[in-house]
C-alpha cells in the first residue's frame, strides 16, 4: 500500500514537472508592453519643449486621437521613422505629441530643422522619468491613445508603413 502511495507521488511530481516545462517552453519570453493596451494613462504632466508650461491630460483629451512619440536626436531608428511621422501629421483626426527623450535641446532643434517637424506639440523628458509612466523601455516608441486617454496600441521601435496604415484605419 505504502509503495503504491510513494509510486503515485513520484509519478504525480514527474507529471507536474513535465507540465511546467511544457507550458514554460511554449510561453514566449520576448518582453513587450501589450498588457498596457486598453489601460488608461493617468497623471500626464510633461514640460513643454519651447517654454516652461506643462502639457497635461486636459490638453490630450481635446484631441480625437494622440500619438505620443518618444524620440531623440541621438537615436538612429528615430530618423528611420521620421518620414512616416511627417506623413501622419497631415491626417486630420490625429495630433502627434513628440516627447524629446534625454536629449540636448540644441541637438533636438537642429534635428527638427534638418528633417522637418512632424509634431503638433513638443514636450521634453530630460531625465526620461516620464517615459516610465508610459511603459517605455527604449526609443523610439509610440503610443496611440484616444480622447479618454486609453491606450489603443503601442508601437515598439520605429514606425513603419504597416503601422501607419493601422493608425490611419483607426483614426478614420
Amino acid at each position, binding site marked *: 500500500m505504502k509503495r503504491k502511495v510513494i509510486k503515485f*507521488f513520484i509519478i504525480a*511530481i514527474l507529471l507536474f514537472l513535465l507540465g511546467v516545462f511544457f507550458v514554460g517552453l511554449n510561453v514566449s519570453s520576448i*518582453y513587450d508592453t501589450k*498588457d498596457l493596451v486598453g*489601460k488608461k494613462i493617468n497623471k500626464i504632466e510633461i514640460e513643454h519643449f519651447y517654454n516652461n508650461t506643462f502639457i497635461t491630460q486636459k490638453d490630450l483629451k481635446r484631441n480625437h486621437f494622440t500619438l505620443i512619440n518618444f524620440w531623440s536626436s541621438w537615436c538612429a531608428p528615430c530618423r528611420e521613422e521620421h518620414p512616416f511621422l511627417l506623413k501622419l501629421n497631415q491626417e486630420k483626426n490625429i495630433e502627434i505629441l513628440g516627447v524629446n527623450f534625454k536629449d540636448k535641446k540644441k541637438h533636438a532643434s537642429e534635428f527638427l530643422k534638418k528633417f522637418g517637424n512632424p509634431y503638433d506639440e513638443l514636450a521634453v523628458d530630460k531625465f*526620461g*522619468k516620464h517615459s*516610465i509612466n508610459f*511603459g517605455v*523601455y527604449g526609443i523610439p516608441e509610440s503610443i496611440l491613445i484616444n480622447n479618454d486617454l486609453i491606450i489603443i496600441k503601442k508601437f515598439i521601435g520605429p514606425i513603419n508603413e504597416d503601422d501607419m496604415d493601422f493608425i490611419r484605419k483607426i483614426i478614420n
Partner: protein
Amino acid sequence: MKKIIFILYFLLNFDYLIADSTSINSNKIFKNLRCLICQGQSVADSNSEFAQTIKLVVKDKIEEGKTEKEIYNFLIEKYGEWIVYKPQLNIVNSALWLIPYLVLLFGGIIIFLLFKKRGNR
C-alpha cells in the same frame, strides 16, 4: 541569562530595526528589479538607459513616501510582473510559493516511511 541574551540581541539589531521602519533601501529594490533590455541583469547591476531611468524613478517614489510594495505595484502596472524577480504572492503564483514546501513535506514523509520500514526489519 535569557534576559541578557534578549537585550543584547535587541541592541545589536536596533539600528537595523530603525532603518527598516523609517527608510526604504533603494538598492534592495534595484536588486529585485529586472533590467528588461539587458541579458540577465538586474537594475542594480546595469548601467543601461532603462536601468538608469528606473533608478531615478524609484528614488523619486521613495522621496514621495511610497512604500516598497507601492513602488513594485507601480512598475508592475507599467511593465508587467516580469519586471520583478521575486514573484508576488497571489492566486496565479500560489503554486510557485507552495510547491517547494509541499515537496519538502512529502519528501519528509517518504523518507520517514522508508526509515520506519527499515527499522521494522
